[in-house]
């Protein structure tokens, strides 16, 4: 999934890019309203994070223009203003959500996952709920959630991709390169450490016993495997 981040503060912009990329999204960044609109037209992202106060064209105006091109694409406003008027105007323009500065990464992740779920539900064939089983663990890819008994586990888009790939090739070893390609993208060159760290965190989240993983098994020197 590709996300357009339009934010004039370079550090916030890069931070959001890193945050979203760590969740498994591809990002494109714009530093002003005009650039944001141009990038939206050329790249057609899956959703947009839009700062309100931007040079050249403000977030409201960009949102209006985006809506003319695509009425469906989810838009999340980021704003340092939290006045009443912002919410009302934003909602009238068809914003899907608001993130108020200063924000925490958890809040951003929660809101982005919520928007992603809506997007994935819309993409999925209606009336069907896709469930992938990993023993006691049930994965609901479109929900970005897994369930073990009564416990609900929130997952990132990348987590779901990794698990879906392992499930699809169950019994086979999925090489590290393939995991990179499928889950990070060809252009992205993560370090070996990034992959290992990610798998380690994912295991903590989904494995009954992370020290003796039963879902994501390490195949030394090659990759990982699910023996379902």
């Amino acid at each position, binding site marked *: 999934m590709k996300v357009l981040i339009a934010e004039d*503060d370079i*550090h*916030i912009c890069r*931070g*959001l890019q*890193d*945050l979203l990329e*760590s969740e498994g999204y591809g990002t494109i960044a714009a530093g002003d309203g005009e650039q944001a609109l141009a990038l939206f037209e050329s790249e057609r992202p899956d959703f947009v994070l839009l700062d309100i106060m931007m040079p050249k064209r403000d977030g409201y105006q960009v949102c209006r223009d985006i809506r003319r091109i695509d009425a469906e694409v989810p838009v999340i406003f980021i704003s*340092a*203003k*939290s*006045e*009443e008027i912002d*919410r009302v105007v934003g909602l009238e323009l068809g914003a899907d959500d608001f993130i108020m*500065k*200063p*924000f*925490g*990464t*958890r809040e951003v992740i929660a809101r982005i996952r919520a928007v992603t779920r809506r997007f994935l539900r819309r993409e999925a064939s209606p009336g069907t709920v896709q469930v992938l089983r990993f023993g006691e663990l049930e994965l609901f890819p479109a929900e970005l959630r897994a369930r073990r008994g009564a416990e609900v586990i929130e997952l990132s888009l990348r987590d779901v991709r990794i698990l879906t790939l392992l499930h699809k090739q169950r019994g086979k070893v999925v090489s590290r390169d393939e995991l990179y390609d499928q889950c990070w993208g060809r252009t992205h060159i993560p370090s070996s450490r990034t992959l290992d*760290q990610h798998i*380690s965190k994912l295991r903590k989240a989904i494995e009954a016993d992370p020290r003796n993983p039963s879902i994501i098994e390490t195949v030394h020197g090659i990759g990982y495997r699910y023996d379902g």
Partner: protein
Amino acid sequence: MRNKSFIAVVLIVLLPVAGLGWLGVRLLGSERQALEHRTRTLVEAQLLIIDDSIKAYFDAQRSQLLRDIKGLPRDTTALRTYAQSKRLVRQVFVMDARGERLHPPVNAALTEAEQRFLVRSADIWRSRDILYQGAQPPAQEPDLRKTDAMRSDGWYVWHWATETDLIFWQRDAERLIGIELEPARVKADIIGLLPATASNEEHLGPARIQLLDERGALAYQWGELNGGSDATARLLAQRPLSHPLGSWKLAYYAPAANGSAVSGKLGLASAVSALALAIAGLAWYLHREHTRTARLAMQRVNFVNQVSHELKIPLTNIRMYAELLAQQLDGSEERPRRYLDIIVAESQRLSRLILNVLNFGRMQREAVRLHRQAGVIDAAVASALEAFRPALEGKGVQISFTRGAPANAEFDRDALEQILNNLFSNVEKYGSSGARLDVITEQSADHTVIRVRDYGAGIPLRERERVFEAFFRLNSKLSDGVTGTGIGLTIARELARLHGGELRLLESESGAHFEVTLRTAGARA
């Protein structure tokens, strides 16, 4: 705000002016009464002077007539001659001790005038006592208050046709002599005594004085009303004349339009208007000063708001990068993780502070609005509590959360979070010595109650309500050296009230025990 200004204007300008106007009208009223009283006294004095001159006239006539009677011969011819020779005398009569007529003569021919007199005076000849009765002087003349038997002379007045007839009589043991005066002459003499102008007092305005006879008919009048018509003239005073013309009256009239009262009202109106202008000017000045102060205060608030807004971007970066950095750490790097946790926690604290300042500014502008959305109160409480857990547990506070609000309810999550942040922040700052924090939630169909209790030093009884006042901070060893803006509880209470509820400080044996009530429609426990 407009209502308050309006009330202030009413209090500052209208009330004093109305009060002064009322006082002025009362003062004017009593002044008019006093003036009227003084005028009346002056008028009465003036009428008394006139009456005195008429009385003096009759006294002079009495002396003259007594002298005349003394030297009066007894024979008919001489008596007739006397009566004809005196311009003031119309007729003379004499009766003996038994009341029998001696003159006009009984046995001789009577003149025409004597015959007319006898017709006029028939009552006297029937009973001479009426002479004495008619001569009864008014009671206020004690020197003349004698019994009929003692009196040797007097006036007798009676009315005949349109005339007032006056008889002066004098008696001794043998006879009674009476002299009838010529009414027209008497009247002419009296008119001659009257002053040419109605008023010789400069305090008194134009006036008209009337002399009224016994029938109330106008005998004479003098003085001008200066444009005031007779129909509207006011009767200021009237006075009966002294004896013997006691049935006659003097009446004093003044013009109806009371110039002094009108000018008094005008004067009062202009004085009150001037005062109103002065007070209005003062009120305007105060209002301008107030507006200027309010504008300055607003500029300061705006400045603080602006700065707070500006702080949001660096704060976002500090927090986001600290969190991103924390994500990069693996489990072995405990110390860097702790440092980053502190950076995150402190940036969150700064965020809360900024949110408080901005919300306080918004409350001052009455611009706070709630956004109710469906959610679970317990989840929101748990999340707010979680944010404080590291700081509270770091200070050795054991947290206990008893969940009782699990239903889906409509509420403003941000507002609730801010209320709880302020309460938890106070526990962290002032209540951590109690080493315990109890959070309890309860829910009914349309309300949710959240109790936050610590076991620290608590709040003294006398400060219980004041802690909710803006900028109030407890002055104690506990709060000394602890940072704070003094607006947290003010905002928390205001938000609870906006949420259809309340924030109260409950009584407790130890520590501070706050209770938040929120109207949470849709909650079904």
